[in-house]
């Protein structure tokens, strides 16, 4: 069977598939717009016939009924008292909410065979949000030209015990300060509205939602810190005897947190959150001054699902081997041409290129680039792709997802948001800040403790309606290499992460930070290179996706933006992209250490 014949067959079936699933869709914009991609060969590549991406999504069973913790009752009581008293003095805000957390964080950090840090810390806090004005225009309104800030949320530490007087005293003063600040801010917002031109999107500032009431048992976690110290100590020693590895560490973090939410609308929830992670990281230095970093993580929903020593050891050995190979690898040459983004890299690609740009608040903020603000109903990527964000999924194809939550930080249940259907943009990620055409939250208002909520990703999932196997995807890459007359194609396996700029002032670009990058030559040879960055602009990049493999991989991580760091995941099949732009990382100037690593046990 030759490659060409197979492509032909795939293309025939593919056309049928595409028609059946998305007859009403317009063809993807970018495929029309970009020259080489519009050629018949490229069209053929876009129509494989394999099965749709396999999705086995597990959602947690409904929790047993539970009694509210004293803290939830206390929060509700003091919120009601404060609102009543403020109203009595004619100073009531139209909306107020308390979100409190009670967290236990266990961490063990080991390096070079010794435990560097080990702690078990309990922490309790409250974030207070008060809104003055009304749903249409309120104190949260982002003023034209205003810098993004942490918002008007007030945060305070709470006593570790349910001491009513101590807790109420804190809530009382903080609520008072927050309502005064909101009233002042509202005046500024109203003054600004008078002197600036009408905003392009004049959606309300705060959506109307049905208040949720939901009480689950508090979080519980069993973890033996001493046992983990004993396990991580020898494992972290595996890095010894590799003199080229400068820094290395092995970290266990396990968090058990109960979140409490009450609002003046009557919303009330109490939900547990447990998460555990092992992170392996190491760095090395090349003779020409480049610093190389490599990390691997295991993210799981509970500590008992953490991997065994053999799995951790294997991953450490992989990190050591990768760093060793990277040290000896040639530096990448600037490149444009076709590439395969393997699962995790493809997930991060969608997270940066797409996910951050469809956060609802960006669509109406005139300080933002609004890449997709007016593209609802339009095709923005290949017609075989669906993209959704679904925080209700706890486990996907056996992998625990970091972005699972039952309620967002505005008291709205986490919901599936079908962002792209058949290549066409359908909706945005929405918190309670509405955007043109969307008046309700889809449960994506999120924040880190102490920040103000904005719309964020949870579990971003990319699926393909039809796929090819991985070997075929690679053959398609080489076919594209030949067609474009390139000496080689690129393969991105591991990414550290990436970033994107969304404000009007900055270029609307993204940059991904790949670590394991290979050149794939027409003869099938793979060559590892180092120092590659992957850059581009979102509309073009999404339009260049040609095919998806029949795999799916998940990147679990923490994503930082205006509202702080929140746990997220991004899952995607391996993707063939017709054009990527690879640039060379800025070269470090620092020399490797002057002296060799000290001998174990000392000189004497």
């Amino acid at each position, binding site marked *: 069977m030759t490659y060409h014949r197979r492509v032909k067959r795939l293309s025939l079936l593919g056309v049928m598939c595409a028609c059946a699933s998305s007859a009403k869709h317009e063809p993807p914009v970018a495929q029309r717009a970009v020259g080489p991609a519009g050629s018949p060969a490229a069209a053929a590549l876009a129509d494989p016939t394999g099965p749709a991406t396999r999705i086995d999504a597990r959602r947690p069973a409904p929790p047993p009924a539970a009694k509210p913790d004293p803290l939830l009752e206390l929060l509700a009581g*003091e919120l009601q*008292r*404060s609102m009543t*008293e*403020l109203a009595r*003095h004619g*100073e009531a805000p139209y909306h107020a909410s308390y979100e409190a957390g009670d967290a236990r964080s266990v961490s063990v*950090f080991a*390096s*070079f*065979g*010794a*435990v*560097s*840090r*080990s*702690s078990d*810390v*309990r922490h*309790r806090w409250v974030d207070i949000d008060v809104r003055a004005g009304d749903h249409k225009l309120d104190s949260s309104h982002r003023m034209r030209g205003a810098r993004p800030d942490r918002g008007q949320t007030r945060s305070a*530490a*709470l*006593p*570790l*015990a349910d*001491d009513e*007087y*101590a*807790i*109420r*005293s*804190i*809530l*009382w*003063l903080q*609520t*008072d300060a927050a*309502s*005064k600040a909101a009233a002042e801010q509202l005046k500024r917002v109203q003054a600004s509205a008078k002197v600036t031109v009408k905003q392009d999107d004049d959606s309300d500032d705060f959506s109307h939602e049905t208040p949720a009431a939901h009480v689950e048992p508090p979080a519980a976690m069993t973890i033996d810190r001493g046992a983990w110290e004993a396990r991580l100590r020898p494992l972290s020693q595996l890095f*010894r005897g590799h003199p080229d590895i*400068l*820094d290395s560490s092995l970290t266990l973090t396990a968090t058990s947190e109960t979140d409490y939410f009450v609002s003046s609308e009557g919303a009330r929830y109490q939900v547990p959150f447990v998460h555990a992670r092992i992170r392996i990281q190491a760095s090395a230095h090349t003779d020409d001054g480049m610093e190389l970093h490599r990390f691997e993580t295991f993210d799981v929903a509970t500590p008992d699902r953490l991997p065994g020593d053999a799995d951790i050891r294997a991953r450490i050995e992989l990190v050591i081997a990768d760093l060793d190979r990277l040290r000896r690898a040639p530096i990448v040459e600037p490149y444009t041409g076709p590439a395969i983004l393997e699962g995790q890299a493809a997930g991060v690609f969608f997270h940066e290129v797409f996910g951050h740009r469809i956060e609802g608040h960006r669509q109406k903020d005139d300080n933002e680039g609004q890449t997709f603000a007016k593209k609802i109903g339009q095709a923005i990527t290949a017609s075989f792709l669906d993209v959704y964000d679904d925080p209700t999924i706890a486990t996907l194809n056996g992998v625990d997802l970091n972005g699972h939550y039952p309620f967002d930080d505005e008291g709205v249940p986490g919901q599936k948001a079908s962002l792209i259907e058949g290549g066409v943009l359908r909706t945005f990620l929405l918190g309670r800040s509405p955007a043109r055409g969307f008046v309700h939250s889809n449960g994506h208002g999120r924040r880190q403790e102490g920040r103000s909520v904005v719309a964020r990703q949870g579990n971003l999932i990319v699926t393909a309606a039809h796929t090819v196997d991985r070997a075929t995807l690679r053959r398609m890459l080489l076919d594209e290499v030949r067609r474009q007359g390139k000496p080689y194609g690129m393969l991105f396996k591991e990414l550290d992460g990436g970033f994107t700029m969304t404000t009007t002032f900055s270029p609307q670009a993204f940059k991904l930070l790949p670590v394991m990058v290979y050149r794939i030559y027409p003869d099938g040879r793979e060559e590892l290179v180092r120092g590659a960055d992957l850059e581009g602009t979102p509309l073009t990049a999404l339009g260049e996706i040609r095919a998806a493999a029949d795999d799916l991989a998940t990147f679990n991580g923490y994503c930082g933006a205006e509202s702080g760091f929140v746990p997220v995941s991004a899952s995607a099949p391996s993707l063939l992209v017709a054009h990527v732009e690879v640039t060379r990382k800025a070269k470090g100037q*620092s*020399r490797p*250490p*002057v*002296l060799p*690593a*000290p001998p*174990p*046990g*000392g*000189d*004497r």
Partner: protein
Amino acid sequence: MRLAALALCTCALAAPDRTAHAGGPPPPQAVRAMTDELARAIDKLELPGIAKPYYLAYQLWDVRIATVAASFGALTFSLAGPERSVDIDLRIGDHALDNSNFADSFEHRQESALGDEDDYDAARHALWLATDRAYKAAGEALDRKQAVIKEEAKNPDEAPSFSKDTPVKLSDTAPPATPELPRLEALASKLSGVFRANPDVYRNTVRVREMRGNRYFVSSEGGAAAAALGEVRVTVTCATQADDGMPLHDSIMFVAPSFDQLPREADMVAQVEAMSRQLSALRKAPIVDDYAGPVVFRGTAAGRVVRALLADDLAGTPAPKGSRPGARTAGDSDLAGKVGQHILPAGVSVVDDPTLARSAGQPLTGHFAFDEEGIAARRVSLVEDGVFKRFLMSRTPRKGFEHSTGHGRSSATSPVRAHPANLIVSASRGVPDRELVRHALAAAKQQGLAYVMVVDRITTPEQGDLDPGMLSGPGSVIGQPSLVKRVYPDGREELVRGTAFAAVPLRALKDLLDIGNSGVPYHYVSAGSGRPFDALFEPPSGIAISIVAPSLVFRDLDLKKPRGAQRKPPIAPRPAP
């Protein structure tokens, strides 16, 4: 030569039992790692174009710290654990000119965090990398410093970079001990629980911090010293708002070298209760009137004034050389050029004595046997009979002060410079407080005033209440008096609120009307950043300093009543207990 010196230092540390202070615990593995890496680095660290280091010193802080906080009797924070880090002083060039005390000295503060567990290989690995960074940074700094100097005209006041002083050899360590968290928690809860009884108190925090451990110093000059560290610090703050909206707060502190040496719990409770009552009284107290006349500073307020007006200026480390030719960074002493001149009234003397652990039975926090450059601490006479005699020095000399006095100290944000430790002010003709107030009243009467102002406590303003006006203007920021009274000729004392001082110049000290005959210690922690900001922020840790000053009577100070609107008091009433 260097290797011979090193061998000595290894001995001293590896076998502390054989030193003068027998019976100490064996040194941690990290000290062996320091000694070994120091020997290797001083011998082998060399890059083309960068000379080998001529001096290298490591200082290990091997301590355990516990911090707890409570509010209204409820615990809000509790954490204990080891904190181990090594400060690195690596110098290239020579004593006359090296990489130190240059504009970017903050960037060039070199340190390395060590892990909780004492492990030779892990410590050695960390030291290897940190020393490598320090060496490269030193090379870059010296190049830049030399480039600046080349473009400068000859400066007659230029001093060498590093003094020739002999480091100390001693070992006086204590067995590793962990602060007992439960008793710290109980104390914080107990003291903050006092405020439950007083609904006038809107906010309060009791923070208890205990540190125990050892400090180890080794240097390529053969320095090898080790000493035990121990400190417990209890800080109690409370705050409220008067009905007219004026923010009010107060704060007291208890210190001791160990938990058992704190004042009796009942005594601490009584003091906190007194402060709580004072805060209630302050809410009802009249607002101060504008005043110009004699002002008496009693109790800890006297030490606070000495801190603001004098303490930083007694340190003689010259300001770092600026990054452009001719430029000097801020930070040189206002006492520069005043040696031999009167800066205080005749009969007044000032000494700094880190060798003192107590003053009149009260613990002092600036007690140490050797400084952070391994130099033996000693008593230094700074002001004699009102005449300024000499500066406190680190090993960074200034013209006329070529040697260290053993006062080199650092904080997390500031490299080693000279700082006071235990500053003691005394007067040969001091008078008791009663008499002092009488003198002040007499002077006030002459100026046509019906009363005299007496300040009993000054605290650091809370962040939200910081008046930016305090940072502008010449002179020193005294802080925010929390306990100020009008004292009338009939002996009546009337509490007032809202006092702020106009900036006070150093020369006001020369003209003191009167001085007391005994003082209570005032304790503070300095970030080491120098004025004016130092007095406005209390860092959680830093350079511990105690000042013992008798009551001071200034002849003529301006006190201002507050101007402008206050924030509204809380709208909803306080939750009921």
